[in-house]
């Protein structure tokens, strides 16, 4: 198990990168990009989450089975969000009040 432990320097670098991303996402929130603001904020959040999962949760350097399990979970989450978005996006198409 301890084979996936990285040198301490790596963890501090990841921490600094996360702090830089946080500063960037706060800065981006005060710039008016229209609807792209939400997309930019979530894209930075996904980048930060990837760093945390890969380094802090020791997925990088672990057995290949771990990423497979994580990706299948994320795929299922994607399906749930897709169904939610399909419902939200097509509300009012039928012209029935309240539907």
């Amino acid at each position: 198990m301890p084979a996936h432990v990285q040198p301490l320097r790596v963890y501090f670098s990841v921490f600094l990168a996360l702090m830089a991303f946080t500063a960037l996402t706060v800065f981006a929130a005060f710039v008016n990009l229209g609807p792209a603001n939400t997309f930019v904020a979530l894209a930075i959040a996904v980048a930060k989450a990837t760093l945390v999962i890969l380094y802090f949760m020791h997925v990088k350097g672990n057995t290949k089975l771990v990423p497979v399990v994580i990706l299948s979970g994320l795929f299922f989450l994607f399906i749930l969000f897709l169904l939610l978005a399909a419902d939200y996006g097509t509300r009012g198409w039928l012209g029935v009040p309240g539907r």
Partner: protein
Amino acid sequence: MTGLHALHMVIGIILVAYVARRAWSGAYTPENHNFLEGTGLYWHFVDLVWIFLFPLLYLIGRH
């Protein structure tokens, strides 16, 4: 959602404090540190939730 996250954080702080105390007294070895590993995973799960909650609650729709 902030309240539920705070509850997760309180649980996490208690767990990390307990693990730190046990680690100081030398309870974890290279052969046995499963509880430490699990606590770390839990703490970073709470971390991940905040990475998404922070922009959603405080940043989107700000400008």
